[in-house]
């Protein structure tokens, strides 16, 4: 504990005008970061909005990487006996495409929206544990980088995204690729884990006065369900990955068939996580669509409680269907029948949602803006993917279809046509709230149509290919087997998607320059995030919003007149908060970044040299103590509106930060007594 008494060293020397928060000495090992602009303000931020933007930006970088991987795969398959890739490289590419798109694109994109929007939608000034939020981001970033460093070593993982044992064992995967897979996913998984407890606590505990659970926006509901799914599914994959790592690195026998192990154990553990995972990917998009459809149909959501509770039901049932991924593995007739039934049942709450969305649009005064077009396409495309999903629930059919391109078609319809379409809709919808201006609608429509057409050209034919018998994960096929035409069509479709995405990238750059400021409420929104200026000010809300009903902000704009007709009484832009108050906010911190940086060191250490692992462990320990000794809010503000008492910052119960109450008082006194400290740290 001697480190606490050490004289604080000042790491940061920033331009004086950027410094608002006085240096905090005596409580942390170092002075805390204070930059409010420039890259430092991003690196050390604990602001949920900046963290959300970084999640999104990093995810879009990985989206580019994963997209290139997919295009290489499609190029190889464009013609029979393709020669673009070797079998080995092909295996690595489809594996990394899957891992990247699931863990490094869709999950962080949903995390981006959850982090940015949830506090705004529930009327909070930040999440419950801002520093833990930053830790989650950095663990995701380091986990992703760690995974992809495998390309530079003996090869990326090549065992498919679910990496079945014993294929993942040392005898079949002798390189280090699978080690990078297991350790990289562990690092990213810890990030999701800390993020999930944080968001659960935020949603349960930090809602605006009056907003009970049944008045929360559906996106918040879906976030809550998703975080519970993460909370309860991640430990299982954690253990599976730990087993895999121990087998490969320390010679354990969990999947060693010679020692009597049953490799089916991996499939169970993986899919106990893996099936909730698909709902983790899709439910946030369901939430987004449940926000956009009412706004652009100018009608309240049809059957709000049904949408909310069907989401909860999907969450529960999502844990009871995992073995339908294993129908072909010889589970035995009773297990297959049971999981077949539960799988058919889970289609019911999903169907309820589809019905409610259609009901929302029915008779509405629909505005076909770009976010609306993406949302409607989600409803349609997901329905197609959902129907082929129900086909797989029937074990007899599944046995024919499994491991064929039909499966590939199915999950791309739900994950691309479902999850990703919803997320793009969310981007167009919330872009003004995040960046202060809309995206160009005309370019957006080009983006939409190119992606929609390209998507259907790519994955529609895969249904046919699969039923014709083309197995998935084959790196080439012979000519004249009937696979040639549809494969070529799929590849053309993939390149059309590429063009669509390029249009999107151009749209982002162009809109930044040309689009006028959007105003607080550009879409005539219904939920309270539209009652604050765009882009959202750092403290979110000038005044704590008091909520009385669902779609509370809309009811501030539209009320019944004397004749009982609904009339507009105000424009959103006029009654929005001004964003000119300055409540005291949690201060930036180095420690989340330092703590997260210890994890990849442990990863490299486990693969190459254990000494490095101990360095990483030491870094983590130092960071934990540095973190705990630092109050979450630097002293100097008059009020402390965010309910985040300093002692509450440690997710895993490390209550070492109890010194802060005293220490905080202490440091207030200090910063008063030597004011020359103020502009430095």
């Amino acid at each position, binding site marked *: *504990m001697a480190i606490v008494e050490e004289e604080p060293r000042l790491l940061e020397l920033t331009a004086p005008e950027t410094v608002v928060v006085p240096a905090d000495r005596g409580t942390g090992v170092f002075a805390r970061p204070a930059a409010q602009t420039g890259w430092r303000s991003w690196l050390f931020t604990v602001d949920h909005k900046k963290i959300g933007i970084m999640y999104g930006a990093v995810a879009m970088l990985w989206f580019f990487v994963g997209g290139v991987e997919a295009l290489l795969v499609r190029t190889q398959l464009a013609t029979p006996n393709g020669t673009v890739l070797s079998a080995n490289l092909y295996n690595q590419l489809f594996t990394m495409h899957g891992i990247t798109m699931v863990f490094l694109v869709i999950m962080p994109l949903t995390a981006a929206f959850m982090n940015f929007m949830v506090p705004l939608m529930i009327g909070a000034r930040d999440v*419950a*544990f801002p520093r833990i939020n930053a830790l989650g981001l950095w663990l995701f970033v380091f986990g992703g980088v760690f995974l992809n460093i495998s390309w530079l070593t003996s090869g990326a993982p090549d065992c498919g995204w679910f990496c079945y044992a014993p294929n993942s064992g040392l005898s079949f995967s002798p390189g280090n690729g699978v080690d990078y897979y297991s350790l990289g996913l562990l690092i990213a998984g810890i990030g999701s884990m800390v993020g999930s*407890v944080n968001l*659960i*606590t935020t949603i349960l*505990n*930090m809602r605006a006065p009056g*907003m009970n659970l049944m008045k929360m926006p559906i996106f918040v509901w879906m976030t809550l369900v998703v975080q519970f799914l993460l*909370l*309860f*599914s*991640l*430990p299982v994959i954690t*253990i599976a990955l*730990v*087993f895999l790592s*121990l087998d490969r690195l*320390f*010679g*354990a*026998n*969990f999947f060693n068939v*010679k*020692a*009597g192990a*049953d490799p089916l154990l991996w499939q169970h553990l993986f899919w106990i996580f893996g099936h909730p995972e698909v709902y983790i990917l899709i439910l946030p998009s369901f939430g987004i669509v449940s926000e956009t459809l009412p706004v652009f149909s100018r009608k309240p959501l049809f059957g709000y409680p049904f949408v909310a509770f069907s989401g909860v039901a999907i969450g529960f049932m999502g844990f009871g269907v995992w073995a339908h991924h294993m129908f072909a593995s010889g589970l035995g007739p009773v297990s297959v029948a049971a999981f077949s039934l539960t799988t058919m049942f889970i289609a019911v709450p999903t169907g309820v949602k589809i019905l409610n969305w259609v009901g929302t649009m029915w008779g509405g005064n629909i505005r076909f803006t770009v976010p609306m077009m993406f949302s409607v396409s989600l409803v349609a495309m997901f329905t197609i993917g959902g129907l082929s999903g129900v086909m797989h629930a029937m074990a007899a059919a599944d046995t024919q279809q499994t491991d064929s391109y039909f499966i590939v078609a199915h999950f791309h319809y739900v994950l691309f046509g479902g999850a990703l379409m919803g997320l793009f809709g969310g981007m167009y919808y919330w872009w003004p709230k995040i960046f202060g201006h809309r995206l160009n609608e005309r370019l957006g429509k080009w983006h939409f149509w190119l992606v929609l057409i390209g998507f259907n050209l790519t994955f529609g034919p895969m249904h046919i290919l699969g039923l014709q018998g083309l197995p998935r994960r084959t790196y080439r096929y012979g000519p004249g087997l009937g696979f040639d035409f549809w494969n070529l069509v799929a590849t053309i479709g993939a390149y059309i998607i590429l063009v669509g995405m390029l249009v999107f990238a151009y749209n982002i750059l162009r809109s930044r320059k040309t689009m006028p400021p959007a105003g607080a409420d550009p879409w005539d929104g219904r939920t309270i995030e539209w*009652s604050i200026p765009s882009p959202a000010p750092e403290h979110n*809300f000038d005044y*704590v*919003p*008091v909520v009385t009903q669902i779609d509370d*902000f809309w009811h*501030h704009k539209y009320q019944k007149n004397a004749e009982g007709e609904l009339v507009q009484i*105000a*424009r959103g832009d*006029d*009654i*929005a*908060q001004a964003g000119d108050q300055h409540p005291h906010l949690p201060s930036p911190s180095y420690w989340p970044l330092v703590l997260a940086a210890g994890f990849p060191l442990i990863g490299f250490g486990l693969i190459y040299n254990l000494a490095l692992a101990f360095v990483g462990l030491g870094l983590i320990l130092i960071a934990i103590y540095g973190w705990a000794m630092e109050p979450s809010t630097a002293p100097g503000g008059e009020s*402390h*509106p965010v*309910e985040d*008492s300093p*002692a*509450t*910052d*440690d997710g*895993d*119960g*490390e*209550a*070492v*930060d*109890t*010194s*802060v*109450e*005293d*220490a905080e008082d202490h440091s207030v006194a200090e910063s008063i007594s030597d004011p020359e400290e103020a502009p430095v740290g």
Partner: protein
Amino acid sequence: MADTTVAPAYGPTEWDEVEHMPTSTGLSNVKITMWAFLGSECLLFGSLISTYLLDRNKPDLIPGSGPKASTLFDIPFTSVSSFVLLMSSMTMVLAVSAIARGNQERTRLWLATTAALGATFIAGQVYEFTVFYREGLGYTTNISGSAFFTLTGFHGIHVTLGIVMLATLWYLSKAGHLTRENAESVEIVGLYWHFVDIVWVVIFTVVYLIP
């Protein structure tokens, strides 16, 4: 709209005067987080225990690959260490009760006792592992060894982390930083500690005692 002075939809209310905004449920953030985390830990140990159960009697295809973990159990010895861990739960709850009364010295006494009992348990585990190793069951020897050492090792790491937290709390109390206001941190560490104890209650019964 011509009117320039429109009141914001969400103007100032008495809520803005509140020094510390109460939480929506009235419960503490960190306690909700801890309980959610413990719920998640149930699945972590669920996976580990199921794997051990599955692997403990697997017929070994390699002849002569060492004894199964279950044939080496020393039940009287493990009973004593289980009892020690159970008693540490009692001393932990007494520490929480002492800090709630503001009795720092008593708190430190019970925290130290709890940590000492935990350390005794860990020492017993190290001894047990050493004995198993001498009797021919290493980590890589066979599948029941891998599963047993991983399960109990995971639990041991949890206990060790708990000891570190207890020691930190003890230091904070000694340094005068553990005030009545943040007595909750003792309670939170206590929750973690009791959880580690009940996991052992399950392991002791399911792994050691049930034949």
